[in-house]
């Protein structure tokens, strides 16, 4: 393998200008506007789709009359639950149908779908569908939802198929606990006990591109163009709900305009495919911004966290108990692991001999929650890291010193029985604090807050094909999905390094389930670690082919052939060489230079649960972490005490995400994750009415951060050199920067106003109210 061209220093605040250039293959298309997104596609005879959504957030569905809609001019198909196979889907618990059948459970439930010759006709026909409802009491309060006698969102939950280990009862869609030692006895013996309640509102992924789907049938097969982050999961959903074999469904993703988790999972591909089949013509669905806010089952979950921690006077954490309620919304989506993941985040990356944490994902009549970038982590981290500063304050300890004392390091055991290998958390704390500490004094009403976070890596199955054509130019055919992070684009670098070529010598064929082997999609920060493994393996096999050809051509041993700078040469004798283009031309008339790679993914660590010392109920496999990532964010803020407005001035962010393969792309992920974190921290409040309907489903009132709000960000990468699960020792990356920001901001606010804010987001009004002593953490 050829090493990277230059080795930039990443262990000090990074100067982006000093980093190696990264030529993104998709860059010119996106920057010039020549790139095509799903909504840009037009097919001959194409129809336009519109949905009929539920008019109540909870109601019995008595009748759906489509007769008027069907007779309207230009209307080519109208579908309801009666027109598709009666299949309930969703892996964790099969609690959902494509179209609502007996009941509607949130305002984004789809009751019917229409395809017509124009969008206006489709919408008019959707408006003409007459639906009769019997309203039912709504469930929106997480604590009331668990009480005896609460109305049930899914009264028939016991009849649903569920995955192994999903613990359910009533409105609890999934329950998990982490129990280690004897937390209650240890708490009773603790010298100091601190309790707090922390309440996080729901928030949204809010990709720039609202989702689109185009479907076309030909010869009994359907091709679906979809703005999905996970084309293979989308295909699986279509196959399950329309009862089709995988080889009759092809999902292609044109350029994707962001996702942030919001476009993970299977969404509307089957609706559009079914409309196209019924109409006998291609159909296109493009969401409005309002639909993008309200309908998808990928809202970031609201959360109530009650935390109690016992301490020794020397600052050591001896026990932690916690209860976490997560607003799951009306359907499971992919939330079955949320309680266990939330429990891990509420425990935090701390040494702890005794803990007992219970977490419940609660069904409500709100939009379903699902994986948005680092699901459960920013809220859980915000709660526990706000709590951590309260712990330090109770002992009059410096919060940074408190963290350094209690945070896990090499050889330590955290809340579950995982012994951590060499990790960079302690170095992250030092580096982040140093990056943001000014030389002089802080200004008036300014302070610095610190928080640490963690997040796993997710090894999984993934495949790719690498080939060199007869001119020596390469193609990478990959199942991986580019979500804007640059991870698929970085595959060129990996292949090029294996083959002694330049990244620009490769084109990437991607985002097409019919062309490439399986990949898990842009989900769980897994693309580069898993598909990178596949590409390195495939390119390595092509490299072996080249070396054999070169050895014959140069009359040398295969073991002595080196691939570099576009040629194969004999080690120690650079003049004895043949270009890769020449070898490729020869192979083009023979065996062809093509290979696939997949390889078994690295295994997840086993937890030491010997003797019942550790007991996890509702285990969803997210307690033992492969390639654990660690981070520390130190945030310098200014608070306007008269209004509660918080301005983030500077952030130091230090991350252990293993070996950084592409520093410039990695830097972009840290900066973007921080901006998403600031929005979640300060402005991205979701307003609901009493029935659970979102009121601010638009970009004016759902306030994302803008480019003008961006603070100075200094990034440091700590590369401890162990526990990597991807090429060159890489771990995941893109979710980790979205973990600690909000927590660090609260700890900075606390220093200015004298009290933490107990509701997330910490809007200006909430900060002001907290400073006046009237914020108690309101229900999400």
């Amino acid at each position, binding site marked *: 393998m050829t090493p990277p061209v230059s080795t930039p220093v990443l262990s000090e605040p990074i100067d982006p200008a000093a980093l190696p250039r990264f030529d993104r293959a998709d860059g010119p298309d996106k920057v010039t506007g020549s790139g095509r997104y799903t909504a840009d596609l037009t097919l001959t005879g194409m129809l336009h789709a519109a949905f009929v959504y539920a008019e109540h957030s909870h109601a019995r569905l008595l009748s759906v009359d489509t007769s008027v809609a069907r007779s309207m001019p230009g209307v080519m198909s109208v579908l309801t639950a009666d027109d598709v196979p009666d299949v309930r889907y969703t892996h964790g618990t099969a609690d959902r149908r494509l179209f609502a059948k007996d009941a509607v459970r949130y305002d984004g439930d789809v009751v019917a779908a229409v395809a017509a010759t124009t969008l206006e006709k489709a919408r008019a026909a959707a408006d003409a569908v007459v639906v009769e409802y019997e309203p039912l009491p709504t469930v929106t309060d997480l604590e009331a939802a668990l009480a005896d006698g609460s109305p049930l969102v899914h009264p028939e939950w016991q009849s649903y198929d569920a995955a192994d280990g999903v613990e359910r009862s009533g409105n609890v869609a999934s329950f998990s606990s982490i129990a280690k030692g004897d937390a209650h006895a240890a708490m009773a013996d603790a010298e100091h006990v601190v309790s707090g309640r922390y309440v996080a509102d729901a928030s949204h992924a809010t990709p720039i591109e609202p989702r689109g789907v185009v479907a076309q049938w030909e010869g009994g097969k359907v091709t679906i163009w979809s703005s999905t982050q996970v084309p293979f999961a989308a295909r699986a959903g279509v196959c399950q709900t329309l009862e089709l074999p995988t080889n009759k469904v092809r999902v292609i993703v044109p350029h994707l305009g962001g996702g942030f988790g919001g476009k993970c999972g299977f969404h509307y591909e089957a609706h559009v495919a079914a409309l196209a089949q019924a109409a006998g013509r291609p159909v296109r669905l493009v969401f409005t911004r309002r639909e993008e806010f309200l309908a998808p089952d990928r809202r970031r979950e609201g959360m109530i966290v009650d935390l109690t921690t016992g301490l020794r006077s020397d600052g050591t954490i001896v026990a932690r108990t916690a209860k976490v309620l997560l607003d799951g919304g009306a359907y499971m989506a992919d939330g079955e692991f949320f309680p266990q993941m939330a429990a891990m985040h509420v425990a935090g990356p701390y040494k702890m001999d005794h803990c007992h944490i219970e977490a419940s994902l609660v069904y409500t009549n709100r939009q379903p929650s699902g994986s948005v970038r680092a699901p459960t982590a920013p809220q859980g981290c915000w709660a526990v890291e706000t709590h951590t500063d309260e712990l330090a304050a109770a002992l009059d300890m410096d919060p940074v010193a408190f963290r350094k004392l209690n945070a896990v390091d090499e050889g330590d055991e955290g809340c579950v029985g995982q012994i951590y290998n060499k990790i960079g958390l302690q170095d992250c704390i030092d580096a982040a604090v140093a990056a943001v500490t000014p030389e002089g004094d802080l200004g008036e009403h300014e302070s610095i807050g610190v928080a640490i976070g963690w997040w796993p890596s997710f090894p999984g199955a993934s495949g790719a094909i690498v080939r060199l054509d007869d001119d020596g130019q390469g193609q990478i055919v990959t199942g991986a999905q580019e979500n804007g992070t640059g991870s698929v684009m970085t595959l060129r670098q990996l292949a090029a390094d294996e083959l002694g070529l330049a990244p620009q010598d490769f084109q990437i064929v991607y985002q097409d389930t019919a062309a490439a082997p399986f990949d898990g999609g842009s989900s769980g920060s897994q693309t580069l670690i898993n598909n990178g493994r596949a590409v390195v393996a495939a390119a390595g096999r092509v490299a072996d082919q080249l070396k054999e050809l070169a050895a014959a051509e140069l009359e040398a041993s295969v073991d002595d052939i080196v691939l570099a700078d576009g040629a194969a040469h004999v080690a120690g004798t650079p003049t004895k060489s043949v270009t890769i283009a020449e070898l490729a031309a020869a192979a083009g008339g023979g065996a062809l230079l093509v290979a696939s790679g997949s390889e078994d993914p690295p295994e997840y660590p086993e937890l030491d649960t010997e003797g019942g010392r550790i007991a996890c109920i509702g285990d969803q496999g997210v307690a033992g972490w492969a390639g654990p990532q660690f981070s520390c964010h130190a945030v310098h803020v*200014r608070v*306007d005490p*008269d*209004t509660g*407005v918080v*301005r983030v001035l500077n952030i130091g962010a230090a991350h252990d995400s293993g070996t950084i393969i592409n520093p410039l792309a990695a830097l972009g992920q840290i900066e973007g994750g921080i901006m998403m974190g600031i929005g979640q921290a*300060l*402005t991205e409040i979701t*307003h609901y009415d009493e029935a659970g309907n979102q*009121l*601010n489903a*638009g*970009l*004016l*009132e759902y*306030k*994302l*951060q*803008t*480019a*003008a*709000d961006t603070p100075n960000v200094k990034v440091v990468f700590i590369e401890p050199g162990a526990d990597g699960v991807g090429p060159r020792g890489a771990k995941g990356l893109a979710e980790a920067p979205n973990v600690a920001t909000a927590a660090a901001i609260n700890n900075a606010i606390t220093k200015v106003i004298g009290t933490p804010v107990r509701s997330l987001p910490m*809007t*200006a*009004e909430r900060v*002001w*109210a907290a400073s006046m002593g009237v914020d108690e953490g309101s229900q999400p």
Partner: protein
Amino acid sequence: MSFAIATTLDQALAAIADGARPIAGGSDLVVGARHGKAPLPESLVAIDRIAELAEIKAGGDVTRIGAVVNHARLMTDPTVVGNYTALADAAALVGSPATRNVGTLGGNIMNGSPAMDTGAPLVVMGAQVELQSTGGTRTLSIAHLWDAPGSNTAAAGELCTAVLLPPPGDRCGSAYVRLEYRRAMEIAVVGAAAAVVLDEAGAIVNARVALAAVAPTIIEVDGIEDLVAGRALDDDGRAAVADAASSQASPISDMRASDAYRRHTVGVMARRALDAAVRRALGEEIAVPVNRALGIGAA
């Protein structure tokens, strides 16, 4: 639906007399239609290419700002920045660079949103609005232009052609500040403008304060001069102005803020606007907009 482009004022007035709605930047009309607020009118006449509506004329006993002067120009024009600074402060906070390059002063005031940024500055600076129709021209005090949220008192057939401001005097200063949650694409949570005239000793001769987003229309705070005139601005004066603004406000609760929070913060904004106006009148250079220069709101 019909769409005409007028190149002269007479063409525009004739079209409007026939029932056309004027459109310049379209940043309210088109965005509103897309959000389902109101459908686009059946008949539109574009007025953005009428040269005389895009002029800023100073000198003599009135300064005239044409109705289609956009916000990007208001925030940089030397006459506006130098003499009517509160208006420049306000224009600089509107939307984004794209919004400011299409959105016009006439459009902002005729749209009549109680949260508009340019309205409070124009009130404290004593602006008149010029309305023209095929029947003639009239002017009215800008405070009489608004009668309800999203509504104005212009008659059918009348077009706002200019905003008229009194000539600048010595030792004058003005400022507009607003509460905002982010630095771009934001709408005022509350806002306040102040304009002052000082004597040679620095005592306040004349002071006015107006408020945005705390009543059905922009409102002027009564009795400001009684609170601060005759002496240099002091802490008692600042506090009294804040109290007056808070007590005269009649805010609503909505997604952006509760009524109590609006009532409190509009006092803070009024105090800060007055403070910045006095500092400018004393000759201090505070860059446009005050929000960014002094770190107010999301600055």
